[in-house]
Structure formats: structure tokens, C-alpha cells
């Protein structure tokens, strides 16, 4: 299969503008006749649904949640990047483009990333106009902060709840279109299959989660904005409901899963506390602006801390190893996520972890509190502040910046992070891989589009902080509303589809058979227990570091687990009612196949890049070692029922940046 990226001709900086100006348009009277299905109502889905509703398309939007406002975009804390250069620190569209390409370890598509950087500025304008209460300076203008992997301050934020505020903005725009009748909203509906008619995506099969009823929905095209697949690891910072099912059903119908092994492990999460753990909580990357990461230099200190005989406060300054500052002096604590996560693993592998399980490092704010306290005393005109005054003033400043995060930390761990250094550890957070799309965000199935985290295109092998919100909204507000015209302009004479076509009935029947199979196993193990087992296999063999032997073993273990699942899973209740266990079973069934493709991709990519670290491929200093000669491509996997998945390659060409070893030293 030849993968055509459809990147337009011309110089990089002009591609999008020229293309946008010459794309096929759909006249308003024709838009009214065209139907678009959008699955998922997070940032990408809600913004796309709202904008296409505004344009006059007939939109049908679907979410498995009880309301579009619950999508997991809501949990993004730190911020959203935009090349506004409001801080006059030399930022530009090109610099944001360059940082994203470099941060992604040169495994993303140049043209898509440049377009993303171009759209970034419009997103901020749009969000402000919608009433998103971004942080402000005293003069009333927008404030910025810096984030990992970059040396400018371009991140816009709304305290530690930027995702929430942006999602509420998109949700309110969507709500307006619902009230105007341009968008029909289907809450508590989960997509269980994609329907193709003559090779084009023309509809979906959904399950009404309240009644269990299977429904057939037809449209001229289908847009998936269904998020990432991080929950394949069971423990992740994703919400409990995040799943790969919609995307996976598309793959089963012929769409390609691109770079599935590119998963992001976020360095600052609250460590696991026990076997019952259901999810992991992220502490925003913005904390690394002021927090210093360290472990004890001496093994005996680490051991004493693990046994509860000492705390971080007992370790004198000279016995602390601020390993990020030591190893990466240029970026220090603000190295990109993949680098920070691996460094934490290195430290804990040496036995220097600072929690009971050994899997945790410190993130310390004592210096920041002291520094801010002295500055605050100075600005208040206190000449010789006492240490308690400094402490009090400093804690006040830190509280203004990170108050809600500190509060959250204390609620979860029961420890006060103003007094004790925070304990953190890496956890699965985001998936850069996703459905393969071309420049129009169209998959290899005509009429099927993928947006946001669900596609693969912009973050390469590693995503920079505050770029997920940017990409979701760029795709939804500013890309798909235009590019979908390239497909729909050829469909203006296509009448509305009848959902009683044989293709719809067949897909509905297949879905029913699939559900009946799960319900009828009637084994002895819960869905949750299978999910946990899968997660352990994934984390062990396809987590922060990977090797060929482990991956080969992992694939076998997943296949065995899948067999066991069909023999011994137990799904209680009835399929024709509200049944959360059945919902989970369907999702876990899909994860059990997705996990295998991830492992195969990881095994196939004989290099280390970004979030994909293969132990066999590292420099003498232990850093990731890319192989540009052989692996500068997108690996897009085709699922073969009953056989081995097959890889298709899209070569990546870099005309505007020079491929360099990524160095943050």
C-alpha cells in the first residue's frame, strides 16, 4: 500500500496558506444537505463539531459520557502553547515548529507540524473570545510561563486547570450549536463499529449505554476524535473510560495504526501506593519550573528513606544528587518528558528511590520557596526578613502559582508538599501514535478522518508539554473544517444514506454477535483482572525501556492472555440494560489486540527515539540513539485478522530542518 501524505507543494511557511486558499469549497446550500458524524467530544471533537455546525453542516456528535463536558481533555493542567511572542523573547511560528520537530525526535511530518504552529496563535484568540479565563498580568494582558523542552515562555494557562477551561469553551460553543439545531448530540452512546459503503466511511454502529440498544447512524463521512490508547497499560494518567475501541474498530475495517509504540511516559506523577491502585495522578509539568528533582547520593540514605527511618529533610545538601541539573546543565529540570522519565528510572534502578516501593524521586520546592520569599520581602520593603517571614512569603507565592496542585497532592498522599519534598515517579500519560492520516487528516479509508490524540501526525516520538491542547484545538477549530471540504465537495450529489443498507445491517449483526460472545463466556475472572494483567505485561515489556527479547516474550504473553480472556472472562448483568461491566469488556477486548500491535511496532523499530527507548540502541552515555538512515519513517500497521499485522511505511523527508542528535546538555 502506498501512503500518500498529500502534503501540498511550495515552501514550508506558505503551504497551508496557499492550500487553504485553493481548496475545494462546499456552497452553503450544499452544506445543509451533507451529514457529518463526529465521534468523541473532547477538545478536538467538540471544537470540530461546533465549527462544522457553524459552517452549516448537519453534524451528529457522539460521546460515551453523560455529557460532552466530561471528556478527559478536561484534566490537562499546565497549559497550551502558542507562538504569540507576547513575551518578546524571540518566539516565532518557526521556533515553535522547530521545537516540536526536535522535541518529537524527528519522527513527525514537517508540513503538519508547521501548520500546527501557524494555527496556535488563532486558538488563543478564539479561546479568549469564548470567555476562557486565562491568567493575566497586572496590565490586563495575557500571562505566559515556560514548559519543558523549550527556552521561551509561550505557554498560556488558566491556573492548573487549562484543559478544563478550554474544554468548557469548546463545550459551550458546541452547546450553542446544539441549541441552534446544527448539531444533534448523542450522549451515552459508544461507537462499536465503522460502516463502509463502497469503500468509503458512511456511518457507525453505536450502543446506547442506557438501554443497550444497538443503533445504526449514517452520514456522508465520519470523524474520529476519540483520544489516545494509554489505558492499554491499565495504570495511566488517563481517565478510567479512555479507550481505543473507536479507533481500533476503524483499524479492523482497514485503517492503519501509525507508530503505536510511541507512548509518552510523564515524569511527574504521584507514585503507585498499592495493588488496588486504579489510576495515576499527574502533577503538572509546570512544577518543574520551580521544583528541583533529586535523589540521595548515598545508597544507605535511600534505603533508610524507603524503610521510613529518614525523610528527605534529613539528607544534607551535599548528599543530594540533583541528577537532571547535573546531567543536563543547559535545560536542567526542564528537559523534555522522555529524558526526565528515563533519568528517574536510571536513578531508581540504582536503588536510590525514595518511596517504600523504591519507585519514586523527590521534586523539591524548598529553594523556590526561599527565593520567592526573599523577593517578596524585598518588594514589600522588609530589609532583614527572618527565615520564618521568608518561608511564609515564599509559600504564599508558590501557593498562588501551584496551589491547587499542592492541594491535590496532599489529598492523595496525605503529605504536605510545602514542608516535605514531593515524591514523584513517571507514568503513562499520552500516546503520540494513532490512526494514520494524511495532510487533510483523512485516513487511508476515504471519508474517515482522525483528529487530536487519536491521530499520529504532529508529535513524532515525543510530545512537548502544553502541545496536546494546542493540537486538539488546531485540528478541530482550524484544520478539519477546511480540509473536510476536499472530500465533501465531491459528495454534493450523494443523497443521504439509508441506514437500512445491507452494509449497516451486516455491521449491526457483527456487533451483536460480538457482544453475545462476551456475555456467553461466563467464566470466573473479572474484566478488570484481565485489564490489570494486560497492563502489567505492557509496562514490563513495552514501558519505559524495551528490548527485543522482552518484546518477543510480551507478544506471546498477550496472545495467551487473549485466549484466556475468551475462555474465562465473566461479564455480569444483561446486554440490554445499563451495564458498565459490559462496556469495559468490549474495551478490554480491543486493548488486547492493540497491545500486540504496539509490541510489534516496538520490536520492529530498531532504534531509540523519543518515548521509544530500546536498550540495545543507546550512546555510550546511555542516551537514546536514533538511526536516521533506516528508521526515518512512519510505521503504519495493518491488522490482519488471524494473521500477523503488516507494516506500511511513509518515508519522512526533512527539507527545512537538519536532523541532529537531540541534546539538552
Amino acid at each position: 500500500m502506498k501512503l500518500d501524505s498529500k502534503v501540498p507543494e511550495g515552501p514550508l511557511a506558505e503551504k497551508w496558506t496557499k492550500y487553504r486558499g485553493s481548496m475545494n469549497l462546499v456552497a452553503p446550500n450544499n452544506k445543509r444537505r451533507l451529514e457529518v458524524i463526529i465521534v468523541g467530544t473532547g477538545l478536538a471533537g467538540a471544537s470540530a463539531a461546533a465549527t462544522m455546525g457553524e459552517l452549516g453542516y448537519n453534524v451528529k456528535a457522539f460521546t460515551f459520557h453523560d455529557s460532552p463536558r466530561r471528556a478527559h481533555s478536561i484534566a490537562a493542567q499546565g497549559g497550551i502553547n502558542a507562538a504569540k511572542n507576547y513575551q518578546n523573547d524571540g518566539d516565532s511560528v518557526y521556533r515553535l515548529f522547530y521545537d516540536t520537530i526536535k522535541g518529537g525526535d524527528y519522527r513527525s511530518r514537517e508540513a503538519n507540524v508547521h501548520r500546527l504552529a501557524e494555527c496556535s496563535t488563532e486558538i488563543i484568540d478564539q479561546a479568549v473570545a469564548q470567555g476562557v479565563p486565562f491568567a493575566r498580568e497586572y496590565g490586563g494582558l495575557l500571562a505566559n510561563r515556560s514548559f519543558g523542552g523549550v527556552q521561551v515562555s509561550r505557554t498560556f494557562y488558566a491556573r492548573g486547570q487549562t484543559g478544563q477551561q478550554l474544554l468548557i469553551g469548546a463545550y459551550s460553543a458546541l452547546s450553542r450549536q446544539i441549541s441552534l439545531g446544527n448539531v444533534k448530540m448523542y450522549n451515552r452512546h459508544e461507537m462499536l463499529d465503522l460502516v463502509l459503503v463502497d469503500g468509503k466511511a458512511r456511518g457507525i454502529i453505536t450502543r446506547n449505554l442506557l438501554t443497550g440498544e444497538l443503533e445504526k447512524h449514517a452520514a456522508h463521512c465520519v470523524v474520529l476524535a476519540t483520544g489516545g490508547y494509554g489505558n492499554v497499560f491499565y495504570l495511566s494518567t488517563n481517565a478510567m473510560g479512555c479507550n481505543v475501541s473507536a479507533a481500533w474498530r476503524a483499524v479492523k475495517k482497514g485503517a492503519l495504526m501509525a507508530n503505536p509504540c510511541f507512548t509518552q511516559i510523564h515524569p511527574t506523577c504521584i507514585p503507585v501506593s498499592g495493588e488496588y491502585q486504579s489510576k495515576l495522578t499527574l502533577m503538572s509539568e509546570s512544577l518543574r519550573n520551580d521544583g528541583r528533582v533529586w535523589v540521595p547520593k548515598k545508597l544507605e540514605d535511600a534505603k533508610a528513606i524507603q524503610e521510613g527511618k529518614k525523610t528527605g529533610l534529613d539528607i544534607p545538601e551535599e548528599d543530594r544528587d540533583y541528577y537532571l541539573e547535573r546531567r543536563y546543565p543547559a535545560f536542567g529540570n526542564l528537559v523534555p518528558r522522555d529524558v526526565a522519565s528515563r533519568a528517574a528510572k536510571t536513578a531508581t534502578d540504582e536503588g536510590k528511590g525514595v518511596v517504600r516501593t523504591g519507585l519514586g524521586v523527590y521534586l523539591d520546592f524548598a529553594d523556590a520557596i526561599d527565593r520567592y520569599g526573599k523577593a517578596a520581602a524585598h518588594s514589600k520593603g522588609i530589609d532583614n526578613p527572618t527565615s520564618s517571614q521568608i518561608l511564609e512569603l515564599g509559600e504564599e507565592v508558590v501557593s498562588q502559582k501551584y496551589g491547587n496542585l499542592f492541594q491535590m497532592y496532599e489529598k492523595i498522599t496525605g503529605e504536605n508538599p510545602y514542608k516535605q519534598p514531593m515524591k514523584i515517579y513517571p507514568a503513562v500519560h499520552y500516546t503520540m501514535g494513532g490512526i494514520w492520516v494524511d495532510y487533510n487528516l483523512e485516513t487511508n479509508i476515504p471519508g474517515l478522518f482522525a483528529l487530536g490524540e487519536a491521530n499520529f501526525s504532529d508529535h513524532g516520538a515525543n510530545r512537548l508539554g502544553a502541545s496536546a491542547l494546542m493540537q486538539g484545538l488546531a485540528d478541530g477549530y482550524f484544520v478539519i473544517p477546511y480540509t473536510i471540504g476536499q472530500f465533501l465537495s465531491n459528495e454534493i450529489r450523494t443523497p443521504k444514506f439509508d441506514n437500512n443498507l445491507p452494509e449497516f445491517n451486516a455491521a449491526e449483526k457483527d456487533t451483536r454477535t460480538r457482544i453475545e460472545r462476551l456475555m456467553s463466556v461466563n467464566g470466573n475472572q473479572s474484566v478488570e483482572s484481565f485489564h490489570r494483567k494486560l497492563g502489567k505485561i505492557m509496562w514490563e515489556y513495552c514501558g519505559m525501556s524495551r528490548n527485543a527479547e522482552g518484546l518477543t516474550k510480551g507478544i506471546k504473553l498477550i496472545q495467551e492472555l487473549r485466549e484466556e480472556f475468551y475462555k474465562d472472562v465473566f461479564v455480569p448483568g444483561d446486554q440490554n440494560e445499563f451495564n458498565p461491566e459490559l462496556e469495559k469488556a468490549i474495551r478490554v477486548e480491543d486493548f488486547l489486540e492493540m497491545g500486540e500491535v504496539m509490541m510489534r511496532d516496538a520490536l520492529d523499530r530498531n532504534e531509540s527515539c523519543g518515548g521509544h527507548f530500546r536498550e540495545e540502541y543507546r550512546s555510550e552515555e546511555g542516551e537514546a540513539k536514533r538511526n536516521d538512515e533506516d528508521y526515518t519513517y512512519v510505521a503504519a500497521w495493518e491488522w490482519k485478522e488471524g494473521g500477523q499485522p503488516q507494516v506500511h511505511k511513509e518515508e519522512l523527508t526533512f527539507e527545512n530542518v537538519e536532523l541532529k542528535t537531540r541534546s539538552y546538555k
Partner: protein
Amino acid sequence: MQLTLKVWRQKNGNAQGRFEHHNIEAEEHMSFLEMLDVLNEKLISEKKEPVAFEHDCREGICGACSMVINGRPHGPQTGTTTCQLHMRAYKSGDTITIEPFRANSFPVIKDLVVDRSSFDRIIQAGGYISVNTGQAPDGNTIPVEKDQASDAFDSATCIGCGACVAACPNGSAMLFTSAKVNHLEQLPQGKVEHNRRVKDMVKQMDKEGFGKCSNVGACSVECPKEISVENIAALNRHYLSSVFVKK
């Protein structure tokens, strides 16, 4: 720790509900929902139906969790959602009563799951600024005074969970509605269609069958985002003045 749970079980919206008793062993580091996970795993291993409850992000921001614990929405801690409540708030031997949010406008779907779609319809009635994609001027052309932006944020922090309604003896949605109105009213870009928004949202709120506000204040006390009752006072003021504004 050993706990006794009294959990509300209700097959569906039409069925009669009842309390079910369970003994369970929990650990202090567990979240409240993880404790319920343990209960459900136990029920499933006995081939019984697990307790249905709504949850998603488990970090206090999506607003999905919706239970009343020992008579209080989201349990005993202020400014905390159920998913952020940890078992260290309890001691061995405690009996914990768990019910769904109860209000006429939040019908029970199953066990602890309720239908809160009425909130969506209130937002659809006017909880937005009418701006299409692409119409916006540069972000910095609309300066917003720092403290005012912060006040708007305080109102905007609502997670739409419905604890305010569940806490209110009248089942009123005034805190929810007023928080959205004030979030937008306190920003210059939201002032333009303010009067229309106030009237439309209040009208929809009444249509959904929510009760009247009688200044009890329980809504604000139980709000996991600690949204101030001052929002309600402001909404009353806005509503009155919107009625007297010439169209």
C-alpha cells in the same frame, strides 16, 4: 480497616430501590472509589452484579462522580470530590452509607448513577458567548484586569457535578446556573449578551423542574470546587435588572 457499607441498589429508574449491606476490608491509602472497586471485584467473584457508579477522571475535575456519603454529597471533606476522598478519612469499624445524588431533576438510572442532562440543557439555553470560530480579534486586544480574571475563574471552576443540587433541600440549581452566568459576566467579552443569557438560562432552569433557592447555603458548603454563594446573590441581582432592561 474493616468497614460496613450500606449501599443504595436500584435496578433502574422504575424499580424500587433499597439499601444493601456489605462488609469490606480497605486500606487507608485507597481512594473511596478504589474501595468501591474492591467491593465490586468481590461481588463479581461471587457472580453478583457490581454496584453501578459514575466515575471517570478520578482526579477531581471531570465531575462524573455523584454519590452522597453519610448524608453529604462527595463525603466529609470540604473542597473534595468523591474520587479524591481517601480512606484515611475513616477508621476501622465505621459504617458508611452511600446513596445517589437525590433530586427530582436528577432521576436515578441505576444504583448510584443519575441523569444530569438537565445541566447540559441549561448551558445550551445560553451558557456561552456567541462567537463563531475565526471571528476572534487578537487575544491581547481585550485586556482583563488581573483580579477580575481571577474572580471569573473562581466561578468558571465549576465541574458540573450537581453536588449543589443534591445538597439543597429544595433541589435548586442556582449555584450551578449562577456560576456560569458570573463566569461570563465578569469578562468584558461576556457582557455583550449578558441580559439575554440570564433570562434564558433561568427560564430553562425553571423548566427542568429544579427547586427555588431559599438561601440555605448548603450548595456552596458541599461544592467540591468551593464556589461561593455570592454567585447566587449576583444572579438574583442580574435577573432582576435583566427583567427591567428594554429589549
